[in-house]
């Protein structure tokens, strides 16, 4: 049951990394941990406790849902909900605006990844 309130930007690094990871498609716990650890996934070192604690709250807030898919009894897959997509999009827009601002100030090279 969705009872929580969707988090307003800025999102916590863990929530952002999980949303970004699930934007690619349905994933299980360790896949999300691995994605989050990669620099392009946010560079966040998530342990299983933090991951599943965040997923629990994100499910309550309606950002993610269990897909029902399972290739193992203990391996659970999760997917983004519509709300999760829009929250991620809002966060990316916020970060994009910050990056654009940094570029205009000369803090980042023009037209490229820092």
């Amino acid at each position: 049951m969705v009872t929580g309130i969707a988090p307003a930007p800025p999102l916590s690094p863990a929530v952002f990394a999980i949303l970004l990871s699930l934007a690619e498609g349905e994933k299980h716990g360790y896949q999300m941990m691995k994605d989050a650890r990669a620099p392009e996934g946010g560079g966040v070192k998530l342990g299983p406790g933090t991951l599943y604690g965040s997923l629990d709250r994100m499910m309550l807030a309606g950002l993610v849902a269990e897909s029902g898919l399972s290739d193992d009894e203990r391996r659970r897959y999760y997917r983004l909900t519509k709300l999760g997509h829009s929250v991620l999009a809002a966060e990316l827009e916020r970060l994009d605006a910050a990056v654009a601002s940094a570029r205009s100030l000369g803090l980042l090279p023009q037209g490229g990844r820092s």
Partner: protein
Amino acid sequence: MSESQFQHARLERFYAAAMRLYPPPFREAFAPAMRQAFHDALLDRSLSRRTLIPLVLRDLVTSLAKEHLSTARETFSRPALLFNALVLGALATGLAFALNAIPQQVLRLGANDPQIAMATDVATALEQGNRNAIPQPDTLPALAGGAGKVDIARSLSPFVIVYDDRGQPLASQAQLNGKIPVPPSGVFSYVRTHQQDRISWQPVLGRDNGVRIAAVIQRVDGPHPGFVLAGRNMREVESREALVGQLAGLTWIGMLGVILVGTLVFGWFSRPKTA
């Protein structure tokens, strides 16, 4: 079983045991998936053991604290539970305040008891022209400590002082630091219009001379108007008041403790099953 597999199995057993530290609802929902994630991490050759173990230990500590806090919040921060606790706390505070204020007031009013009779009797006698009613120091027996006058700072005996209409002392059974104490002129003004005043009076201000007197001042009318003050050192009453205050404070803390424990126990047994 290879050395590596043996180590994996040992780490997984440790992690499975650590799952028992999580709150039951969280453990029931996620422990198998968490163990699977840890198992997957152990098998991931891109993640060294030296990176994984500290990461998992840190994660255990932080997530355990977080999940227990979250469970406690869900269990104990329900509005009805908090409202009940606040109402009970407010009632306990009001009750403790009454337990402090009522006995103190009774003690303070009781401290005037002999003085009321003394002041009115002397004033009545003076109004009837009986100048013998003016108290003499030696009318007090041994209580005067040998000098014939009550030492207000030390003695608990009641005493009488007579003042003329301007508030100048005419006769006294007592003294404080070798002088006859004189109340502020405002007290005499009040008694002129209201006939009597009952006050707690500290003749000499300051911590060292903080003698307080339960004083009853009575107006004397007639051909020789003036005032009669009957007083008594409040030391004993004040120590009783302090004791009452301490008992009321302890009662208050005890009641808040009972409410806190009751709220925690009730909150735990009535917690939402999904928490």
